[in-house]
Structure formats: structure tokens, C-alpha cells
């Protein structure tokens, strides 16, 4: 304890440059790379552009659900109903599109509205009626599945609207992909420069320009690599853009807005949050609105990709989403977890699925391996955290 000194500027900045690295996130990335290398060595096609493109498309639904799930779990709740919401809103979309012949824009707007409405109802019950989220969403899981069977009369509804189907299965043209890469890199450079300038205005020291530049170059290289790989097959798959867009928006919400900060505080210590004047109920309800909305978006992607709505669509997806969050370092105790982590978690889960299928492993093995990886990931996480605190 005596070692602790009063903070001075230089010490803190040093921390910012070298200490601000999220070790856990990097461990996750390391694990993902290891999995990819492992499957790549065992199977030639795993790392092919075609398979990677498939893999990203496959993971998109889980990833979109995990984005919402992270925030709910961070706030100390859980949402078991997302899989059924995917099913129900997918069914609604198919009915509107196929049976009623609505234009794509109306289908999209109505489906999203349905997701938001469901989220509002569940959120209200959890936040304002204090019914545990586990119960509300467990009930919701059954209710929405039942409702889906009811409205679709337990039939599979095919989608014929080509615009709708494109949401899940189209690819951006190669030139558009390149433009996207350029825009992304330009945004990265300007935001880095802007951040430096702002820090200088506040009189904080900034990292050496070379270091920031190295970071920018490394990330830009990844962006270019990604776009070129995708372009060498058919281009960037549509769903992946949804995932990236939503991940950026929700990371911003989580890290930069008062709402996000409040959610972490609620999950970390709800009493302290309440006594700091945070609107617990309003925020809690909003979280479920988000999961409802994201489930509806996932439903659009899934229904479009399969070009039909079935009564089993989305089954077990809630568990995949929760597993992705947990593998990505989200604590079920609440208070900690990141969206980037959850996306990586979703990627780990999907890579295992994809890789094991390519190797021709039997389904039962796939379940056993995935379940074991989930437990192992949390075990390692808990063990490493303990080491940190002692």
C-alpha cells in the first residue's frame, strides 16, 4: 500500500499507452487464431475465402443477438427469449411479405416494430414490476414460440421477395467493398488525429505519433486483408455489414454514452447506482427494448438467408448468444463485459461449428466439444482473475 503514490500526469499517461490494453480481449483473439490455425492445418478448405465468407455469414445471427445480450448481462439480468423472438418476428416478416404481399420496406419496419414492442413489454415487467428477468424471458421464450406456431399455423412460409432475400444472402460488389475499406481507414485516421488534438487541448500528454500510426496501420491492414479476402470470393456478405455496423453503434453506446456508463454501474452495484441518482428502471427497460430490436434484426437476416420462416427458427439461439457473451469475457454476475468480446465469442463458437463440420465430426461430438469449450473458457477466466487480485 505504501507503494502507491499520488498520481501525476506522466505516470498516468504511461498507463494509458501500455496498460490500457485489455489482456482478456487479446487472449480471446489469440484463442480464436489458434482455433483457425488448428482447423486450417487439419483441413485445406477451412481458411479458403469461400469458407471464411460462409463462416462470417453463419455467425451473423448469433453475433447480433450477443450484442444485445452483453448489455443485459452486464446490467445483471438475462434474456432467454431472444431465440423465440427471432422465430416470432421472422414469422411475422414472412407473413407480411408472402401472405400479405407487403413491400420490403413495410416488412422491415413492421418486424422491427414488433421486436421493439415485445422488448418493451418484457422490459416493463422486469423493470417496473420487479419480476426476475429469468422468469419473464423464460415465459416469453415459450409464449413467443407458441405465438409463432399459432400465426403460421405451424407451417413453413417461403419468402419470394428478392429484395428481402438479399438482406441475408447478397454480397457487396468488389468496388463497393474497396470504397468501404477506404472510408473506414479514413474515419480511423481522422478520429485518431482528432482524439490527439483534443487531448492536447486539455493539456494531457499524447502517445508518440509513431505508436498511434503503428496502431492505425495495423488496423488498416486488417481491414484491407478482410476486404480482399471477401472480394476474392463474392464480396462482403450483406449480414456481416449489419454485424459490424451494430457492433460499432452498440460499442459506442456502451463506452461513450451516459446510458452505457449507467448500465455498467447498475450491474456493478445497483444500490450505489441508485444512490448516485441513476434511473434504474428506465435503463433496465431500455435494455430489453434493445434485445427485442436486435432479435428482430437477427430475424430478418435469418429469414432472408434461409428464404423461409419455420417454426423452429431461432431455437436455442439464446443459449448460443449467452455462450458467446460468456466466452467473450462477460461476467454473469453483472458489471463487466464488452461487445467486442461477445463478437469474438460468437466467432469462436461459429468457427468450432464450421470447423468440426468440415472435418466430418459427428454431431454429438460437436455438442460435447462446444459445451466443454464454454466451461473451460470460464474456468480459465475465473482462475486468471483470481491471480490478478491476489
Amino acid at each position, binding site marked *: 500500500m505504501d507503494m502507491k503514490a499520488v498520481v501525476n500526469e506522466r505516470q*498516468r499517461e504511461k*498507463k494509458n499507452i501500455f496498460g490500457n490494453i485489455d489482456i482478456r480481449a487479446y487472449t480471446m483473439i489469440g484463442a480464436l487464431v489458434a482455433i483457425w490455425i488448428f482447423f486450417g492445418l487439419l483441413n485445406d478448405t477451412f481458411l479458403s475465402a469461400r469458407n471464411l465468407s460462409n463462416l462470417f455469414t453463419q455467425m451473423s445471427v448469433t453475433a447480433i443477438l450477443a450484442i444485445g445480450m452483453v448489455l443485459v448481462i452486464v446490467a445483471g439480468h438475462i434474456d432467454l427469449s431472444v431465440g423465440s423472438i427471432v422465430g416470432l418476428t421472422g414469422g411475422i416478416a414472412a407473413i407480411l411479405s408472402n401472405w400479405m404481399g407487403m413491400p420490403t420496406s413495410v416488412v422491415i419496419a413492421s418486424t422491427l416494430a414488433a421486436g421493439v414492442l415485445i422488448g418493451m413489454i418484457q422490459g416493463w415487467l422486469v423493470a417496473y414490476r420487479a419480476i426476475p428477468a429469468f422468469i419473464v424471458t423464460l415465459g416469453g421464450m415459450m409464449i413467443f414460440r407458441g405465438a409463432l406456431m399459432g400465426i403460421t399455423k405451424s407451417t413453413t412460409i417461403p419468402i419470394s421477395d428478392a429484395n428481402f432475400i438479399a438482406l441475408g444472402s447478397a454480397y457487396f460488389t468488389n468496388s463497393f467493398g474497396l470504397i468501404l475499406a477506404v472510408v473506414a481507414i479514413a474515419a480511423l485516421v481522422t478520429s485518431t488525429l482528432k482524439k490527439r488534438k483534443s487531448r492536447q487541448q486539455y493539456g494531457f500528454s499524447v502517445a508518440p505519433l509513431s505508436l498511434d500510426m503503428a496502431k492505425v496501420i495495423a488496423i488498416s491492414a486488417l481491414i484491407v486483408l478482410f476486404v480482399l479476402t471477401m472480394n476474392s470470393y463474392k464480396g462482403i456478405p450483406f449480414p456481416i455489414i449489419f454485424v459490424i455496423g451494430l457492433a460499432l453503434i452498440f460499442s459506442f453506446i456502451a463506452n461513450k454514452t451516459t446510458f452505457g456508463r449507467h448500465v455498467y454501474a447498475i450491474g*456493478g452495484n445497483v444500490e*450505489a447506482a441508485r444512490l*448516485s*441518482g441513476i434511473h434504474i428502471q428506465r435503463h433496465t427497460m431500455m435494455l430489453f427494448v434493445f434485445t427485442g430490436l436486435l432479435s428482430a434484426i437477427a430475424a430478418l437476416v435469418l429469414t432472408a438467408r434461409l428464404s423461409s420462416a419455420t417454426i423452429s427458427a431461432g431455437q436455442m439461439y439464446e443459449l448460443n448468444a449467452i455462450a458467446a457473451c460468456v466466452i467473450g469475457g462477460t461476467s454473469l454476475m453483472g*458489471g*463487466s463485459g464488452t461487445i467486442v468480446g461477445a463478437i469474438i465469442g460468437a466467432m469462436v463458437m461459429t468457427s468450432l461449428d464450421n470447423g468440426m463440420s468440415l472435418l466430418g465430426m459427428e454431431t454429438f461430438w460437436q455438442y460435447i466439444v462446444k459445451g466443454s469449450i464454454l466451461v473451460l473458457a470460464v474456468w480459465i477466466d475465473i482462475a486468471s482473475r483470481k491471480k490478478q487480485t491476489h
Partner: protein
Amino acid sequence: MYALEMIEITKEFPGVKALDRVSFKVKKGEIHALCGENGAGKSTLMKVLSGLYPAGTYSGEIRIDGQPVMFRNIVDAEKAGIAIIHQELALVKEMTVGENIFLGREPKKFGVIQWDELYYEAAKWLEKVGLNISPQTKIHSLGIGQQQLVEIAKALAKQAQILILDEPTAALTESEVEILMGILELLRKQGVACIYISHKMPEVFRLADSITVLRDGKSIATLSRAETNEDQVVSLMVGRELTERYPYVKRTPQEVVLEVKNYSVWHKDKPMKVNQNINLTVRKGEIVGIAGLMGAGRTEFAMSLFGAYEGKAEGEVWIEGTQVHIRSVQDAIRAGIALVTEDRKRLGLVLGMDVKTNTTLASLEAISKLKVINQNEELKWSQKYVDELKTKTASLETPVGTLSGGNQQKVVLAKWLMAKPKILILDEPTRGIDVGAKYEIYHLMNKLAEEGVAIMMISSELPEILGMSDRILVMREGQIVKQLTHDEATQENIMMAATGGK
């Protein structure tokens, strides 16, 4: 013949001597009151006696009926006939009275509980404590007073010869207190030794045969009730010399900032008031100390003013001449009130979050535009408070859970200073923090008062109250029973008012 002798008990915690050669003897068939301020060592002594601190973790000797004993755990102590009834009752609410009385010692044959025997026996013990209810009644349908009697029945069913009651009347109504006193007098006749821990002088003097006073972990005196009086006991309880110096400065408080009129607060789940008809004012640049014993209703009052207590409040609150209606913490913050709670880990901080996020938690709006936090502003402000309060932390990104108590408290203070309050309520602001940080907090209080903040400080430490307050209000049983100026106040007259002595 003593039923219990505790001889030269010394118990140390890292850095503190909680008990320093305490001796304490109780005769058979005697009610022996144990008196002392909060933190005098009463609870620690009882934990030693009840086996919660096992033999070997303290030095000294315990004898029961003249025989030395060593308790390794609570079960050992129970076997030796010691039963403790805690302030917080330890009954299983969803179970019946009978099940509770025999919890863990159910009469059984081949592992099967003999329910008829259990309820028959339970009824017998209930009769003994004068409780006229069926043993099949569920605990949650009983009042606190009846639950207390069930606890006593449970203790007696264990053949307890030494009964410890820790503040048994804190939650009881007057008629329930009467019943309890009757039972205790009956037990005395039956030869049970009772250790009665209480702050309340009238009860102590009505009931006890002997009184032992503890102060700062030492046994000060054991007196026979017939030969002493309230004045003597109170002065022994507080009789420490005031050696610590407090940075008190004479101030001239200005206009009234906070005025509370006829303020009453209802208990959050019982139909009783925890505060009654409170009237007080706090002026700009004034430090008002609220003294009282634990459970006097001070924290409830503060939480209620801050919009954070679940029970309903009645009465008026005026801030700078206009009446305000505070229904939530948000209302309170908007009205310019800040509350530094007594339990910083549970109520004040998000331990997993870092210094800067905890600092800005209550005033994020001030550093945000369109709900987007300006993270440079955040760094600037939190750095400012780290510098100003001399918070010792490795960085602004250090989780507050890893800081020492004093530095954690500084982060809580920083959070509320950043909210720029007109009225700052401090609930036990220096509890559990080191001396250095304590004095920094006192200096900070002086500085804030000088800058015109109206400060209300709740504290159970008399020297702190005496040393820092311009005015002192004493609360007892939810009411303000005495008001003293800085010059009038002494440890004795505060304690006398707080314990309800004449």
C-alpha cells in the same frame, strides 16, 4: 458461585486491540447488563463467548461454573449452555415456530422426524416464555416481539444456562418490551444467567442486578445497580480523555439553507415510525452534528431526506426558502443535496469500476453533450479531485475496490463534491479509515463549510461530533431529544440524552 467467568480476555485484529484484558463475571440467576458506546467491544466479547471466535484466536480464560472451557465453534458453546439472541433475528421465516425451535436438533427415529414429539415439546417451551400461540404458526406471521420470544424459547429448549440478549428491545413496541421484561424476570428466578446488552439506561436500571461498563476494549468497572446511578454509568462509558485534537474553527453560519419541519418517516415494512416530528435547520457554512446510538434512526432520516428510503415521509422540507418535494434520489440531487452513505462499499461505490468513473457517476450530465460523455472532461475532473483530496491511487483507471478505506471514502466524497451540493450529508464519514485520511476529511469539511456548503454530519464517535460540529443534535428513538451548541456539549450530556437517562 459464578455461572460464567471471562478472565483477562484479549482479542486483537490486525492493527487494533478490540479487547484488552477484559474481565467479566456473571452469577447464576442474575441479569447482568453490558454497557458501552458503539465499538466499545461488547459484540467482540460476546463473539468470543459464543464460540464465533474460536479458542486460540484470543488470549485469556473462560470458565463455566468454575470449569475452564475451550470453544472451537458455536456448537461447543451451545453444548456448554450458552445461547445468544442477536439483534437481527435468526429465524427461518417460511418455517413454523416448532421447526425453528428445534432447527438442527429435530427429535428423530431412524432419521425420520417425530413431528408429534417436536410440536408437543415446542408447545411446552412456548408456554414457558408466555407465548400463547400454536407451534405450527409460521414465523412470518408473528410480530418482532413474538419472534424474539420464540428465539428465547429456542435458547431455553437447548437448555441454555447463559442467555445473551443483544439489544433485544431495539425493534419492540412498549407493550412487547413489558412482556420481555416479565419473561427475563421469570428466567432470573429459574437461575438462568442473562447478559443484557443495551444502550437504554432506563431499561438497564429497571432490570439489571449488575452493570459492567466497557470502553475502548477495556472493562472499566462492574457495579451493583443498587450502588450506582445513570450519571455514573454514562460518565464511565464516555470517560475517555479528549486527547485528539480536531481542526475546529469558529465559524459564523449565515442564512438557513435546509429547514425540516415536523418530519416523520415510516418504517419501510412495519406500521411504525422510525423518525418522528423532526425539526431542524442547517445554515450556510455550518456543520451540524447528529449524535445518537446505533439504531436511533439517523441513517433512515438521512436516506429519507435524500429520497432513498423506502418508507413514506411526512412533513416539510425547505431549501433556501422554497419548499421541495423529494421523491427520488434524482430530485434530491437536483435540489442540491448530496449524501455520503455510511456503508461505502455497499452503497457508495461500484467497486469494480475505476476511480474516474466512480468520481463522475453522479454528475455525468455535466460532462456530456447529447448523452455522449466527453472523456477528456472526465479525466480532467477526476484528476482535479484526486489532486485536491490527495487520494492515493496508482492511476485514474485503478478499480476502487483495490484502494484503502480512506482513499475509497475520498472517491465517494469526490463524487459528491463534483455534484456541487448546497447541502452535504455525511453519514459516519470516517468509519473504518486511517487517522491520516480522517484528518484530511476533517480539513475538507472545514474548507467546504467555509465555501458555504451546509453540512450535516451523522457520527457515532463522540469526540468527532464534539470536535467538528458548530451545533449538535442528539437523536434517540427517531426523535431529536436535545440540541447543544459547540461550547455546551460534552461527552456526558450527549450520551445522557442518547441513552435516555435523566
